[in-house]
């Protein structure tokens, strides 16, 4: 059996545990971390994310092949970019002013472009941000299932994008590659695929029809 890379999921709120559970079910070794002591999330891990390892963020990241960022965006702004240097980073976060407040650094560009700008030493891929955390698990299906749905993957580093396509596929979605991180703006809140779980043909159609994917 193929050896899967190690995942570090940063964030134990709404989204992080869901992605961690899906990755564990897909066979990935998964560590989960917050900004604090792993002891603080030991119970959460045991009961809500069985199979994951609670660790300090720096240790989890150091050993990881893929780091998933699932923290509130304003907390990301406080994070030291050096922590993620040299890593493949999946940006599962969203900039959503109506729900979370206005953050000036994110007003002018795609949120993942801002994230990548701050993480200049990392390969940033936007994925797993546009399906609601309460649906991500229920809608996951194995490859070939008739009711399988699609999920977008956007990045500027083709090798990193391919790795994340593999992750998305294994956890239960047909990956749809977008041309660039900038094109990934089509996955943001307010777009036709955000919060809507679509099958591959409808997803591709919605993305193609949205002008942002051509930028």
């Amino acid at each position: 059996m193929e050896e899967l890379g190690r995942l570090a999921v940063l964030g134990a709120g709404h989204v992080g545990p869901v992605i961690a559970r899906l990755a564990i079910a897909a066979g990935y070794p998964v560590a989960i971390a917050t900004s604090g002591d792993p002891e603080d999330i030991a119970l959460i891990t045991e009961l809500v994310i069985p199979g994951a390892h609670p660790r300090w963020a720096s240790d989890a990241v150091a050993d990881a092949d893929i780091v998933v960022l699932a923290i509130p965006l304003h907390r990301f702004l406080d994070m030291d970019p050096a922590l993620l240097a040299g890593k493949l980073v999946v940006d599962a976060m969203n900039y959503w002013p109506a729900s979370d407040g206005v953050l000036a650094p994110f007003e002018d560009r795609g949120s993942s472009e801002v994230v990548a700008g701050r993480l200049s030493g990392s390969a940033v891929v936007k994925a797993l941000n546009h399906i609601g955390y309460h649906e991500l698990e229920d809608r996951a299906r194995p490859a070939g299932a008739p009711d399988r749905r699609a999920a977008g993957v956007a990045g500027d580093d083709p090798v990193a994008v391919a790795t994340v396509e593999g992750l998305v596929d294994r956890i239960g979605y047909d990956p749809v590659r977008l041309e660039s991180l900038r094109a990934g703006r089509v996955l943001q809140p307010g777009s036709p695929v955000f919060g809507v779980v679509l099958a591959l043909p409808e997803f591709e159609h919605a993305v193609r029809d949205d002008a942002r994917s051509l930028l």
Partner: protein
Amino acid sequence: MTYTFGLDTFGDRNSDAVGKPLSHAETIRNVAEEGVFAEQAGVDFFGIGEHHTEYFPMPAGDVVLAAIAARTGRIRLGSAVTVLSSDDPVRVFQRYSTLNAISGGRAEVILGRGSSIESFPLFGYDLADYEELFEEKATLFAELLKGGPVTWEGKTRAPLLNQDVVPHTESGPFPAWIGVGGNPQSVIRAARLGFSLALAIIGGPPARFAAYSQLFRRALEKFGRPPLPVLVHSPGHVAATDEQAKAEFWPRWREIIALVAPERGFALPTEESFDTETGPHGALYVGSPETVAQKIATNLRALEATRFDLKYGLPGLTHDQLMTNIELYGRQVVPRVRELLS
């Protein structure tokens, strides 16, 4: 095991029989009537959720609860929820301890964010500060509930130094819950501060919340606290038949979700998704008394919860439809659930 059953409203603006919206004032008077009728129908708890919108004109639910308290003698009355982050914990305590006094000890609060974010700009709070505001204010509220002079200092309100906060409660703290929508760290917080746990389940299979219930119990043990109850809050509508309940609820549900979807990120419901949510594994309790009772019993068992609050009503339903819902819930659903669970 003792189970209790509640009804919650957001003051959903009523329409008349031909679909014309009633005024905010008429809607509020109707909510008071509904609360009084809930007691007559045998319901244990009546909750009012804080909202500040044209279609949920209900920013001061505690005033309405006081009106209901004056006309009832048994039903418990509380918020569902109080948006604590954009309020002052001292004022929230004072309002609900006053309600507790008027009602002879029937007040409760559920603290949370609910689906209400309008209060942040209205009162000058930044949504980006949500987490810090809630953590600090919930901590202070837990202190206030204990009674006695409070000393507290934080970033989100003026400090208190050995402050006596009145009115004192007659017989200790009134019940206080924290509403949680799916963040396990919020479950831990409720246990750490000694609040009971209110699980707000408004979409997807309720059974997935069983882990949260276990997490809450284990966390209470870890923090050395006695066991505390878990309640489930979900939307629904009861009518004589499944078909009638769905026919009344669906167009209103589609309308309200379409209205709030842009800011809340909800997907627009389709008839297919509505059928899933109203089916045995969905989060909506829409149907005949038997259908709704079976679903409540199943999920209370699965989630090891002892209270169920049905969020009844939607903007655009009529007061008569809501009264029928309340009557069927109190007189048929609740006794049937008790029977199924006994």
